[in-house]
């Protein structure tokens, strides 16, 4: 693949990796980290970890 194909493809890979690592840290690692740690500042409350994908999925289903 050349040109824009490569850019788009690698961009998709990067986006999916970013989303995956962020979500993994959010759902799997944060519950085990002490609630006073500074890292919690970068993540929304845990309830959003289920609500946001659910809302996005519903939107996808309704508009596709």
């Amino acid at each position, binding site marked *: 693949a050349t040109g824009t194909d490569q850019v788009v493809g690698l961009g998709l890979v990067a*986006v999916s990796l970013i989303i995956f690592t962020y979500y993994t840290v959010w759902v799997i690692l944060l519950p085990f980290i002490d609630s006073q740690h500074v890292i919690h500042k970068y993540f929304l409350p*845990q309830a959003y970890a289920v609500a946001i994908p659910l809302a996005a999925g519903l939107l996808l289903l309704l508009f596709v």
Partner: protein
Amino acid sequence: VKTAATSLPGASRGLQLPEGRAAAEHEPWRIPNADVGAVRRREDAGRGVTMTKLAQWLWGLALLGSTWAALTMGALGLELPSSCREVLWSLPAYLLVSAGCYALGTVGYRVATFHDCEDAARELQSQIQEARADLARRGMRF
């Protein structure tokens, strides 16, 4: 006495069993010279032999779902720490999101590494132009 050995297709032709003794009496599980496949095929004929992929997926999902439900509702009587319970509660959403990410990443990777044949594409385009010119010359209107 109707035994497994005598009810098989070959039994009526009077096959000679290699053992001298009556296998059905001493070792009923051993059926010499038997077409065991025939027995299985007869038993399965009513049901169908294989399970479809959809059925397999549904089975797997049902198993995982019931395990998750049992664990979250404490039906198994395990006292999990609250952090484990939090992770468990979000597990289905996590699996869905990670499956979606995997799909997206695979699509992107395949798009990026697709083998284009640029020479063949160019050749094909020039051949199309040739064909159009030829047909136009012979009177066909596009």
